Structure formats: C-alpha cells, structure tokens
C-alpha cells in the first residue's frame, strides 16, 4: 500500500538521481585532493612524450608535418630533424600541445623525389619521435582533374561492377528454386566475407589510433550502430535487395576510402591491374543484389539504377573523402559500420533461406552456395592484392 503510494509520489524517481549526485561529490573531492592519494601509491611513471604523427605532406621546397599530443601531459616541440639533421622550421599552431591538440610543423626543405625520408620531432624532454616516409612525392592538392580522377576510380571499382552483376537478373529469374537458393546463399557468403574483411580493417585502423581516442569499443560502436539501424530498416523496407545494396554500399564506401587514402599517401601503387582486380571482386556483389532482386515481381530500370547507386556510388564518395581528408576515427567507424551492415544482411538472407530455400538452411544447395560465395570473394580478392 505504502510502496504503491511512494511509487506514485515520484519521490523514488528523485532517488534515482542520488547516485549521480554522490558521484559528482566524490569526483570533485578526489579532483581537489587526489594528489595526496597518488602520493600514497608512489610516483607515477614519467609521460612517454611521443608525438603522434598524423600526416606528412610534401609541397615544392616544403615539408608539412601534422602532429598531435596523444597523452595526458603537455608535450612541447623542441627540435625537428630531417634524415638526422636539425632543420629550421615554422609552426602553424602552438609549440606546447595540450592533450589531443595538434600543430603543423612547416619545414622549408629541398626534398628529393621518390627517396625515403626520416622525420624526427624531439620533445622538450629529449624524446625523439621518428616517422619514416617510404618515398617523398608531392601530395596531390584538391584539383578538378584529381577530383575527376578519384571519381572515375570510384566509378570503376564501385558502380560499374555492381551494374554488370545486376545484368544477371533475367537469367536468375529463370533459374530453378534450388539454384536461386544457392545463389542467395552465395550472396550471404560474400557478405560474410566482406563483414570479416571490414571488421579486420576497422581493428587495424583502431590499433593505430592514439589510445586517448578510444579502444576497441569504437569498433563495436560503429558495428552495433549500423547493425541495429539496418535491423530497424529491415522491418520498414520490405525489399531484401535494398538491404543487400545498403550492406554492400557501406562496404564499398570503406573500400573507396582505403583506396583514396592509400593513393594520396603513396602507400598504394594504383595500377591498372589493381583496378581490374577490384572490378572482378565487386562484380560478385552485383550478383548478390540481383539474386535478392528476384524476390521482386517487376523491377523497373529506375529501381535497378537506384540499387546500383546505393551499392556502388559510395565508392566514389569514399575515394574523394579518402583522397583529400584523413580522419582515422572516421575510417574506423566506417569500416565497423560496413561490417555491422554486412552482418545484418547475412542474417536477413539467412531468414529468407530458412523459409524459402527448398530443403531449408541445411540443404546442400545453401551450404555449397555459402561456401562458394566465400571462396569466390577470396579468389577474386587475391587479384585486388
């Protein structure tokens, strides 16, 4: 009787705030007197005093080095070396960097094209951060020509192969239900492959982040965010083909991002062979969308065009973004989101197979198709290097 009354009175809602208030009190007490607690435990180790070199750009007669302070304590730029020689430099930004603050070191320097280089930044405590540049070459500026070039690369590795894959739609419509189930399972296999690839890329990028920007949890954030969004959407958008296209599109965005970034920073020789490899790799993605589209009784050309855009066009956006902007945190989130989306679509396709495939999930057609999907992605992935 009284509990009911208390519940109703709302006093218990206020009680829910008490832990928060007490927490604030304890935190402020610790913040003001915390030093003495640390003293009880002994000295804290000295800071590492290592800079995080975010980006090195080469301009005619000039090298620009963007550095960030990844640690709690302030970090001061004292001297700068190029190939073990102290060089004069200008600073764009503060000399003493607070936590996560950045500055750009501008070094007037007659660098030699295509030669490796070692950049050193020494902190006021004498700790030297070295950064190896595999080969010096002029960093591309955003220009209409470069913009077009990156766009074309995105078009070739994203839109074109997905469009080609969709041309299988009429043949798939005439396929026997067992074959259709096999192709659907193949789609699930290729998406599973893409999910794992994206996840591993996300972890690799995350590992290279300064620890202050978050641990492996960032990957989970991106993964769960996109997985749940797609789960929500899958109950609103009935079309399986759209879901598959979104999953593939997010992956292609990440792929474009990786290509653009690697190219802009000279870590990737973007040869014809590599582009051909990506194209063959991605044609399979078009096949996956086509298989899902057989669900729909009539598919207009506009609808097909939309699917191609959803799945392929993000590659163009990705190359642009990767070519001109570099944010490792965004990279981690995008790859994690791609993994989450692809995983969600695997689940959706699995649901479809369970009810629609002759023989259900465990039929030889489904198992064989799934395996084939993974194997084809691996084999064509080898081509993409």
């Amino acid at each position, binding site marked *: 009787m009284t509990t009911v009354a208390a519940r109703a009175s709302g006093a218990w809602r206020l009680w829910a705030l008490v832990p928060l208030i007490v927490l604030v009190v304890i935190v402020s007490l610790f913040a003001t007197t915390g030093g003495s607690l640390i003293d009880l435990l002994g000295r804290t180790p000295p800071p590492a005093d290592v800079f995080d070199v975010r980006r090195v750009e080469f301009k005619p007669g000039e090298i620009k080095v963007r550095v960030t302070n990844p640690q709690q304590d302030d970090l001061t730029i004292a001297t700068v070396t190029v190939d073990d*020689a*102290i060089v004069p430099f200008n600073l764009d930004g503060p000399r003493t960097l607070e936590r996560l603050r950045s500055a750009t070191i*501008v070094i*007037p320097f007659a660098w030699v094209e295509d030669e490796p280089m070692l950049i050193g930044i*020494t902190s006021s405590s004498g700790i030297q951060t070295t950064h190896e540049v595999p080969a010096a070459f002029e960093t591309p500026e955003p220009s209409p020509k470069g913009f077009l070039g990156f766009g074309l690369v995105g078009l070739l590795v994203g839109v074109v192969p997905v469009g080609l894959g969709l041309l299988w739609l009429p043949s798939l419509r005439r396929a026997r239900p067992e074959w259709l189930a096999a192709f659907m399972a193949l789609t699930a296999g290729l998406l599973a492959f893409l999910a794992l690839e994206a996840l591993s890329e996300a972890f690799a990028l995350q590992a290279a982040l300064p620890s202050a920007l978050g641990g492996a949890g960032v990957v989970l954030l991106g993964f769960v965010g996109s997985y749940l969004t797609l789960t929500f959407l899958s109950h609103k958008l009935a079309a399986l083909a759209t879901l598959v296209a979104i999953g593939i599109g997010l992956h292609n965005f990440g792929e474009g991002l990786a290509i653009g970034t690697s190219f802009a920073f000279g870590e990737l020789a973007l040869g014809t062979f590599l582009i051909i490899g990506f194209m063959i790799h991605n044609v399979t993605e078009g096949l996956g969308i086509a298989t899902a589209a057989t669900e729909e009784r009539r598919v207009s050309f506009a609808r097909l065009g939309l699917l191609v855009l959803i799945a392929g066009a993000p590659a163009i956006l990705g190359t642009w973004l990767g070519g001109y902007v570099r944010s490792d945190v965004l990279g981690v989130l995008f790859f994690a989101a791609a993994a989450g989306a692809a995983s969600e679509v695997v689940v959706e396709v699995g649901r479809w197979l369970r009810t629609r495939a002759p023989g259900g999930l465990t039929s030889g057609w489904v198992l064989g198709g799934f395996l084939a999907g993974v194997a084809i992605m691996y084999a064509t992935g080898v081509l993409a290097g």
Partner: protein
Amino acid sequence: MPLIAAGPLARVAFAETERSATHEGHDHANAPEGHAAMIGRDAPSIQRSPEIDALLVPPPALPHKPGRVRDYSLVARDVEIEVAQGVHFPAWTYNGTAPGPVIRATEDDLLRVHFRNEGEHPHTIHFHGIHPANMDGVFEIVPRGGEYTYEFPARPWGMQLYHCHSTPLKKHIHKGLYGAFIIDPPKPRKPAQELVMVLNGFDTDGDGENNFYAVNGPAFYYARYPIRVSRSQTVRIYIANLTEFDLINSFHLHGDFFRYYRTGRDEVVEYTDNVILGQGERGIIEIDFANTGRFMFHAHQSEFAELGWMGFFEVVE
C-alpha cells in the same frame, strides 16, 4: 706577476651576428637557406649563458714552480641542462655544467682537487696522467654525500682530460661527468689566444645513440654566438673528445690549416685542416689565420655537424 701564455683574453669574444630573420610566421620567401639559415639568431641554440661562455676560455697558465699547490673544488650535481634549443636533459655534472670546469696546472704543481658528491649516485674523478694508484678514481668510489681529495703532482705536461669512472661507465660519462685538464710545460708556450673545446654528445632518449652533438655543451652554441678571434695572434685550442657511443669525432677548420699537437706534446705534430679523434683522444690545435672573415668549424662527420657540432670563427684584424 708574469702571466705567460695567457693570451689577450679580451680579444676572444663572441660576435653577435646581425641577422634577425624570425622563425615565427610564414614569410620564408626571404628566409636564409643552407648554412646561412644556421648562424646567429637563426641557429637553433640556447640562450646566451655565462656558465657556458666560461668553459671556452681556460684559466691562465702559470710559470713553472715545482711544489706549488693548485686547489680546485669540484662538486658532482644532478642538474637539468638545456642541451639544444628547448631540449632539457637530466645531466650529472661537475659544478653544474657538462663538460665540467677546465682544470689547469703547470707540470710539477701539486694538484689538489676537493671532490664532493651531491648527486644521487656514487661518482669519482679519474684523471688522465701520471699519479699514485689511490688517486686514480677507480676504486675509491665517493658515495652520495661523500667527499674525497685527489692530490698528486701534475704530470706529464700536455693536454689531458678527466671523467667519472663509476659504473656503468658509459652512463656516468655520457650524462656529463667529464672535462678538460691542461698541464702546461715547464718551458712556457708562446702567447696565444687560448680556447678550450670539449667535444661531447647527448643521448636524450636513452637509446644508446646521441641525439645531439656539441662543443662545450649545447648544440649549435658557437653557430649562434660565433667566436671572435684576432688574425694577428695564434689561436690555440685545447681540444678533447669526450663523445660517448660514437667511436670517433673530429675537428675540421674551413679556409685555413693548423698545427695539431697530439696529446698536446711535441712528439707528433701534423699540419692539416682536419683531425680525427677517438674516444678520450685529445691534443692542441694552433691556427694562424691568414684571412679575416667568418670561418666555419665542425665535425667532418656530417651527421654530427648537422646535429649541433658546428660553429664559426669571426676572424677580425
């Protein structure tokens, strides 16, 4: 009181260069290039320091007088010193600088060096020269707070050096416990403008390699504050190599030649513009400048030169 060989010290001074290009801002269209970007205020070195300046000029030589007592007092101290522009190094020093003070005696003087260890670690002073076994600074380790008096006749004449001989030896030396030790010959040397140059290096990040190289302490000090000398009188440099980690160091003079007396003796004399010194090697350089103007001197190991071991003579009439 006859001050022999005590060169006209007034003439040995630092030239202030006029350049005032700034390293803030972005107008490097007119910025100096190459070595011109590394002189005067453009040279990345530390603020002018009277303590460092004092290391360049040795105390005057005294006439030969066997048995005369020469007292020196050295205190080992842990201090943070600026070894390059903005770079602070937790050094172990004699009297607060790395290198420590110049010790000078005439042969047959009775050298008495009072040593007190105010550092956190046990130290000694090991002198190069001829002395009794218990004056060698090897077994008589001076603990934290301890004292020891080294007393022995100064011999043989020449250019010597001293350093700590506690273990680990490499650390005790590269942290800064070393200095120049001049023993003047009974027959006085000719008057000259006398300088002391102790070649050293600093491993600031503890990886067993020097991050900075220098003469008498901070990197690029004499590039920022060129040494003004007169053409009309011999320039005599007492030079010692106390660089750790790197097997050799060197002294190379631009635009002129010099006589090099190995270990400051007469037995081996060379006429050259470049002398190679192994670890612990030392000697005397005598330059009679033919021209006035600005002449560079540096290690001929280009890496050392570009990591701080480079300076200039400003030769005036």
